[in-house]
């Protein structure tokens, strides 16, 4: 396993100079995942997510990006290596699907993590209202999930992850099932939320354009076996407007990521 560790740690050191300073929100030391049947879902990864950073994991299906995210969330245990999260940091997780309870109103769905944690109703009412306002759904509290569009359901899911006021937000291809226009809206709104709430976001996607638009830093991953192959800094100022999507800088970053993904897929066995 040692050579793979070196390959990943040999990433450009300049990255950390531009990233926000402070203790890392997440630190992985040679964390890897091998299943009992021998499948290598993820080769050892060293990774530091800086507090306040927007970091994206980009790669094709089977590259271990969801596995990596689940290891950070504690949903999966690494088969070797270690994971550290900043002490006392709460965590929000947004899945690929909205995963809402179809029988419960938007209000009850957003309140769920508070109910599970035993927060009294008197305290949770305000938190739920605030979370719904953050995603622009303050008028839809009484609606049932089936009455909402796909994009709105995803907003409910994000509100549910924000209601516990987490510092770290983990998102697993949250907008993958949405149409392009809705996805762009939600990407922009997500960036605004990230800045306003001073969140640290670890975002998984297979869209190059989404990665460029959102991220300060992108880890490019490859499949068979799942591994991190490249690290790209998107050194563009925030806030990023829709004009950024059609700028020359945007397409240069996209090309850089495209080449990186192609090179990785060609070296794969």
């Amino acid at each position, binding site marked *: 396993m040692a050579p793979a560790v070196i390959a990943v740690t040999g990433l450009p050191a300049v990255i950390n100079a531009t990233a926000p300073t402070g203790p890392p929100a997440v630190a992985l030391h040679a964390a890897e995942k091998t299943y009992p049947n021998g499948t290598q879902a993820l080769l050892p990864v060293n990774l530091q997510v800086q507090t306040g950073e927007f970091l994206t994991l980009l790669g094709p299906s089977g590259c271990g990006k969801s596995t990596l995210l689940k290891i950070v969330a504690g949903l999966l245990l690494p088969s070797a290596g270690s994971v550290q999260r900043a002490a006392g940091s709460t965590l929000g*997780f947004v899945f690929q699907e909205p995963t809402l309870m179809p029988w419960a109103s938007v209000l009850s769905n957003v309140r769920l993590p508070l109910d599970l944690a035993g927060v009294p109703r008197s305290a949770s009412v305000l938190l739920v209202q605030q979370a719904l306002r953050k995603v622009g759904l303050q008028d839809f509290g009484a609606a049932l*999930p089936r009455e909402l569009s796909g994009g709105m359901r995803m907003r409910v899911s994000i509100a549910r992850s924000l209601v516990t006021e987490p510092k770290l937000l983990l998102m697993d291809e949250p907008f993958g099932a949405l149409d392009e226009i809705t996805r762009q809206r939600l990407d922009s709104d997500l960036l605004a939320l990230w800045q306003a709430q001073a969140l640290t976001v670890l975002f998984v996607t297979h869209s190059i354009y989404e990665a460029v638009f959102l991220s300060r830093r992108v880890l490019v991953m490859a499949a068979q076996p799942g591994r991190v192959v490249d690290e790209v800094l998107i050194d563009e100022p925030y806030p990023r407007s829709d004009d950024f999507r059609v700028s020359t800088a945007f397409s240069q970053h996209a090309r850089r990521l495209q080449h990186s993904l192609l090179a990785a897929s060609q070296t794969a066995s």
Partner: protein
Amino acid sequence: MTQRQWLWPAALAALLLGLWQALVVAFEVPVFLVPSPLRVALTLVEDAAMLFAALAVTMKITLLAFACATLLGVAVAFAFVQSRVLEAALFPYAVLLQVTPIVAIAPLIIIWVRDPTASLVICATLVALFPIIANTTLGLKSVDPGLLAYFKLQRATRWQTLWRLRIPSALPYFFGGLRISSGLALIGAVVAEFVAGTGGTGTGLAYQILQAGYQLNIPRMFAALGLITVAGVLLFAAMAGLSRWALKGWHDSEVVAEG
């Protein structure tokens, strides 16, 4: 239910009853072979006191058995979901119970249990039990895996997962089981009464049918049969209504099509 849903079946029923009446009158069919619908209706009015008292007895047994089957079935389903060993050990016996004809075991139960009402309720419960067990077990297991992962992520306790996730997810399946079992409870009650009826233990509708048969009182047989059928349909409709009320708005099977 929309108007069209009951309008056409009702029209068909009126047509068939009219045809039946016309044929019986036209061919002068003797009343001890096939009575006319009007004759049956008259009998129903004349023997109302006796027939409705019998209906009350049958319905009491049916509802008691239905309640027992629901409570027992749900309890067994919960046990199955909590313990795989228990399910593996007991499920074959639940199937065994389901495939054994009630007519074959009813005489035994009637001999063993001396209280006539209790023995009939036990028989009908056995008939109605299986759909509740099978459907509720399936429902408690049919949880959205994404939501289950979310509950795990939020460190939900076993109790919270059961109460907030598994039970609501199981409701559509449970109501499906209720609908099937309500009819089966009635069938079970009538069959058990038939078996017990000759022993003079029963005064329910099945007993009335048997008695009427001995006396060649065919119109009364038809009237009693009609009462059983109507009771079964009403029971089913009540369960369907309950299901619609409980699941309205969120479950695909009960969402009213829009536009």
